């Protein structure tokens, strides 16, 4: 057990030490699930374990967790903000407050801003802007090709050295296989992760939802699942050719899952993610042309959704993301085919994920692993586990608390949530980032009732 004797004797604890006692410690990294407590010091976890359940060392601030779950803060690998360029949709500040309210202590920002994050100076800008305005950790993901045009690769080596945690072409696939090959090949030399949005732009064409009976009845052009599977199959072959590390950003169907499963069985450095939307919703939710359910990739059939849930439980799917994508009313209140894609999700990610726990489909740890330990390991960033020396990024969680999603109370600047009026169970009570409490449910609850 990672005990720290210095913290235990209590003599040297400073005033910036806090003890969180009487908690249920849940750490998906180590498999720990036991009553205990945790001590933070200077922004890091100094000590944790059963010995801190009732008693804290003398002289430090004490927080009684009331027996609630204390687990690592979430790491959300796919967050679109509007900064720089579209601050009316979301800024790093508002996104980070939404994240804190949802128990997310680290967000990875996607590079499809204006300008595109494809230059060292812009990575630096994002880091400084986040430091000055955000209440959670922010890491930029940089563009894999210049201007996200899919033609020329960016300075992967210099960008990684500047702090970009991974590289992506954002919402567009790199359709030129030669470019994709070179990007994977070049990235391999630097150990960089390529995160790819997988949709063949030509096959997807003008499609706006899953190609299915529902689409036919609605009279909407469809996107076949093959548009996604073809790209993933190609990419897996390119990974085999180059040895580059590859992550399919969000898969949406059973066929894609099978391709990933087969690639992993062959030992290739391939991983994949899924958005909380595709885990929770299906194409029928679109109902009467509700544009808040217009996503890319589109929501698929119920069979696909169930396969994805199974893939997550089996561990074929490594990461769950919110795919938080704020869009204002102007671009959402349009005819379905003309409306923008995307949904906000930072604040509903954890509660929606816990549906699988409350339904009895999964244990708690595998679900948490997909939003904490796994993304941390993939991106090579700290956090995602409860361990001495790790950053004190964690949350207190009331697993059972029921609540109804009311868009008016979301912290995000944009309110395009597909979980409007959804009845969820499980609520973040407190979010701690680097030892500092950045969100407490008690402070906001007054506004609700």
């Amino acid at each position, binding site marked *: 057990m990672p005990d720290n004797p210095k913290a235990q004797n209590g003599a040297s604890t400073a005033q910036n030490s806090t003890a969180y006692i009487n908690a249920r410690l849940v750490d998906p990294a180590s498999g720990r699930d036991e009553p205990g407590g945790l001590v933070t010091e200077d922004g890091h976890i100094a000590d944790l374990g059963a010995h801190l359940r009732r008693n804290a060392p003398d002289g430090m601030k004490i927080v009684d967790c009331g027996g609630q779950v204390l687990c690592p803060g979430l790491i959300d690998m796919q967050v679109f903000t509007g900064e720089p360029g579209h601050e009316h949709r979301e800024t790093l500040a508002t996104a980070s407050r939404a994240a804190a309210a949802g128990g997310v202590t680290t967000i990875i920002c996607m590079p499809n801003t204006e300008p595109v994050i494809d230059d060292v100076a812009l990575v630096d800008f994002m880091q400084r802007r986040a430091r000055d305005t955000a209440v959670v950790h922010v890491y930029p993901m940089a563009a894999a090709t210049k201007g996200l045009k899919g033609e020329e690769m960016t*300075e992967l*080596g210099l960008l990684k050295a500047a702090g970009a945690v991974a590289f992506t072409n954002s919402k567009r696939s790199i359709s030129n296989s030669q470019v994709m090959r*070179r990007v994977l090949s070049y990235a391999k030399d630097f150990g960089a992760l390529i995160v790819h949005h997988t949709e063949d732009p030509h096959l997807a064409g003008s499609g706006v939802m899953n190609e299915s009976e529902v689409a036919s009845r609605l009279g909407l052009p469809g996107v076949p699942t093959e548009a996604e599977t073809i790209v993933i199959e190609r990419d897996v072959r390119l990974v085999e050719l180059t040895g580059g590390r590859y992550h399919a950003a969000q898969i949406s169907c059973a066929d894609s899952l099978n391709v990933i499963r087969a690639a992993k069985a062959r030992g290739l450095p391939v991983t994949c993610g899924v958005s909380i939307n595709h885990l929770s919703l299906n194409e029928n939710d679109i109902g009467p042309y509700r544009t808040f359910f217009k996503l890319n990739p589109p929501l698929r059939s119920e069979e696909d959704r169930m396969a994805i849930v199974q893939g997550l439980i089996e561990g074929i799917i490594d990461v769950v993301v919110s795919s938080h994508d704020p869009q204002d009313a102007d671009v959402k209140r349009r005819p379905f085919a003309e409306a923008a894609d995307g949904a906000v999700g930072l604040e509903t990610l954890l509660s929606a994920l816990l549906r699988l726990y409350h339904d009895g489909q999964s244990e708690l740890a595998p679900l948490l692993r997909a939003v904490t330990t796994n993304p941390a390991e993939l991106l090579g960033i700290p956090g995602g586990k409860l361990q001495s020396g790790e950053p004190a990024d964690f949350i207190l969680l009331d697993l059972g608390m029921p609540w109804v999603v009311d868009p008016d109370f979301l912290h995000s600047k944009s309110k395009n949530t597909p979980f409007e009026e959804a009845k969820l169970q499980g609520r973040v009570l407190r979010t701690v980032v680097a030892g500092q409490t950045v969100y407490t449910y008690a402070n906001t609850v007054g506004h609700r009732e």
Partner: protein
Amino acid sequence: MTHNFLWQARLRGPHVMVRKPAWRLNAHRSFPMTDGINPHLSKGLLPRRTRPIEWPLMSIAVSKSDFSFSRRHLLGIEGLSLEDINGLLDLAEDAAELNRQIAKKQDVLRGRTQINLFFEASTRTQSSFELAGKRLGADVMNMPVSSSSIQKGETLIDTAMTLNAMRPDLLVVRHYAAGAVELLAQKVDCSVINAGDGSHEHPTQALLDALTIKRNKGRVTGLIVAICGDILHSRVARSNILLLNALGARVRIIAPSTLMPAHADRLGAEVFTHMADGLRDADIVMMLRLQRERMSGSFVPSVREYFHFFGLDHEKLKLAKPDALIMHPGPMNRGVEIDSSVADDNRSVIQEQVELGVAVRMAVLQALAQRLPNS
């Protein structure tokens, strides 16, 4: 004025000419290191260029009369025997000394016609071959491809047949397509020298590199040679891997994966994707030119990034042996693959490579000419 000067010089005669002895030209390189100890002397090896100069030299192959080149063409390093290689290098070494004399003109190729046929722009290789042929007494003609019938749609083989009808003895060919020189060689009666075919081979460059190494280090065997840069498109790298392996060197190739040929590890070199690993303890650092069109995103992201990770600067050079030689086949992109001050460092033998290029090409021309009919 020039005429006057030459005339006066001739009056005074060669013995009065103020000219540094040949071995002095690069003398500073014999004592390059910080501690002032000549590495050759400390190993008891004298560089060959310090031998007394035989003067005058009437033929460059007096002492090597037993050497006979085994092939009609020089199309590549591949397939050459060790005797051929060493024979050419010995000939070239004598030619190098001859080239430092005042009277450089020989007559071993008198009456022979040499045609330089360059389908790809070249300054140093073409002029080097031209000079080599002229110094051996051949009639040298440069075929200006840009204004010739090739531009009018003639096929390579028709061009070869046309030239062949003019009865040249030696044909020096550079072509942008790999294998084109060999194809041409099948259609002509003369000897053909490959002056570079696509990304395939550039045998005279490899020979001059080997000679430069040999003259500066006293040997090639056992040395670690790190070739860095655009290996994928480099004929220089391919020829050097073959030649240096044949001479017993340990060859390393260093490039980003995008500029590394497939199955590079099967080519006879150790493969590295980081300079820090590949340069460690290298005796020779050979930088390759990165062509402009390959810099902006298609193979490497930018000049800035390439120079940061793969450009030879003093920091990276520290990883190599302290007396490592710096080589470059030219033309250099200063600030792209090589730092300007490194290119001008006293360990740089880049100018000597150019000088020995003429010597190597003289050796090749002479070796092939000796096998020509009616020789």
